[in-house]
């Protein structure tokens, strides 16, 4: 079989794939076709990708240096020189927004990367092992779940040095329990299925069964949950920034930017409002994306 130089539609949609890779890619492609039909989800995807790309390209796209102050032009209005105006020390708002995106979105991604795998492992192990292991793991999960997210994050950050890494760890500590519960719930359903019994009948170890047969089935709902949670995480990170516990000045971060300028909401309204709009757009984009992913990955239509 010639290597797939031609990743044509025909090759992907064939009903007689010739390798696991072809079959896997075909399945992804079919999922993509289904996703594409949902306009709102596509809008969410485009917006999310746009925000991420633009944030990554901040050094290239920003007209100014994010820490370049100009005290003669504090709270400058929207103009040709400053598309979004300037903030309380004359820094260009557009630049701050782009660099701030790196911080905010970067925090969120870091949190997700920490939280989802931990939740998956804890949940699947608890669900499959059952008995004492299940009880212990779930009680630990309950302890973390009992704390209100922002309060625990605040306490943690206050105990350590306020800053981005503390904020990330603090939020991650409170964000992982729902994923463990989700994975456990899925595992409890899956483990009674005949195909799992069939794998047990090969004499496979429990680790192999959980990691290679059960966990992959939980991933879809976790992915959906992650994208839907992103908006909440963004808000929590922004909230921490707003309370002065996240990114510390002069580092730009959307929440901090609102906090430090909220007194100007009536006069130079664009200064606190525009970062707020950015947070809103990011949250909405991830929400729509998550809804669309759920319809494709976890359809429960009649």
């Amino acid at each position, binding site marked *: 079989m010639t290597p797939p130089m031609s990743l044509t539609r025909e090759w992907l949609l064939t009903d007689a794939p010739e390798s696991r890779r072809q079959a896997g890619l075909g399945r992804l492609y079919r999922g993509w076709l289904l996703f594409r039909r949902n306009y709102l989800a596509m809008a969410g995807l485009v917006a999310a990708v746009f925000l991420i790309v633009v944030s990554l390209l901040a050094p290239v796209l920003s007209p100014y240096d994010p820490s370049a102050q100009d005290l003669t032009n504090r709270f400058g209005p929207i103009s040709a020189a400053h598309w979004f105006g300037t903030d309380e020390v004359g820094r260009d708002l557009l630049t701050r927004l782009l660099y701030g995106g790196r911080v905010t979105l970067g925090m969120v991604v870091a949190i997700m990367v920490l939280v989802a795998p931990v939740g998956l492992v804890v949940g699947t192990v608890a669900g499959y092992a059952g008995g004492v292991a299940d009880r212990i793991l779930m009680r630990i999960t309950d302890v973390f779940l009992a704390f209100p997210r922002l309060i625990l994050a605040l306490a943690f950050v206050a105990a350590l040095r306020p800053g981005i890494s503390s904020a990330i760890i603090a939020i991650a500590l409170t964000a992982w329990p729902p994923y463990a519960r989700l994975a456990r719930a899925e595992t409890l359903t899956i483990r009674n299925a005949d195909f799992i019994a069939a794998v047990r009948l090969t004499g496979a170890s429990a680790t192999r069964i959980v990691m290679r047969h059960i966990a*992959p089935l939980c991933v879809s709902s976790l992915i959906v949950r992650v994208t839907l949670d992103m908006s909440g995480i963004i808000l929590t990170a922004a909230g921490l920034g707003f309370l002065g516990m996240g990114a510390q000045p002069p580092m730009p971060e959307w929440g901090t930017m609102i906090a430090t300028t909220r007194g100007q909401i009536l006069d130079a309204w664009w200064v606190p409002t525009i970062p707020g709009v950015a947070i809103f757009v990011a949250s909405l984009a991830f929400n729509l994306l998550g809804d669309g992913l759920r319809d494709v990955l976890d359809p429960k239509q009649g």
Partner: protein
Amino acid sequence: MIEVNELRVRFGTIEAVKGVSFRVPQGASFGLVGESGSGKSTVLRALSGLNRDWSGDIVIDGKGQQPIRDKNFFRRVQMVFQDPYGSLHPRQTVDRALSEPLLVHGIGDVDTRVRRALAEVALPALLRFRYPHQLSGGQRQRVAIARALMAEPEVLLLDEPTSALDVSVQAEVLNLLADLQRARNLTYIMVSHNLAVVAHLCSEIGVMQSGEMVELLSADDLRAGRISHPHTKALRALSIELEEPEMAKSA
């Protein structure tokens, strides 16, 4: 080959299997029939190693078995499940499903064996990398049978393998099972509530009712009506009554 003595299985306070005994010589096929709730599937699951809460003796090829079985046991004894829609992992291709037993047991030559397995159950090679939802019920059941045979077992436990299939597909699968048994000298234990299917494939039959084995007889005796227990008589009468399409009643 297989000897079961006073097998008892308990679910909580309820005894689902109350002291069942039977023997199956090598290369033979033994059928377990009964209504739902008679305990026949429970016996099979205890034999397979899926259910560990049993007491009594299970002896396979002279070796007494413990509730927890080792990998060697799973190489020799395999199971085919009833529901073709649940017995294959939804996210794994046919190729992956068939490779899994080989990977777990460390058997090499995976590619050749997978291709050979597909041919043995008369599945075209173009199905090899399909997902279960792209296969029909009959095709899925063939994959399940192929998977069970990958590690070259000697015993096949069949839990109502054709109950969920259309009758034409059932005929093909039953023929396939008969062919495979002859070709590989397999020992079968088949569970079913359909007497005609069981009598077709099995030479010895055990009839279960409410957890007890009420009668052990040969398929020939069942067909001929040489029966002692009333429950068996009732099952046979019902099966015969319903199997022939009703003849036109004379005016």
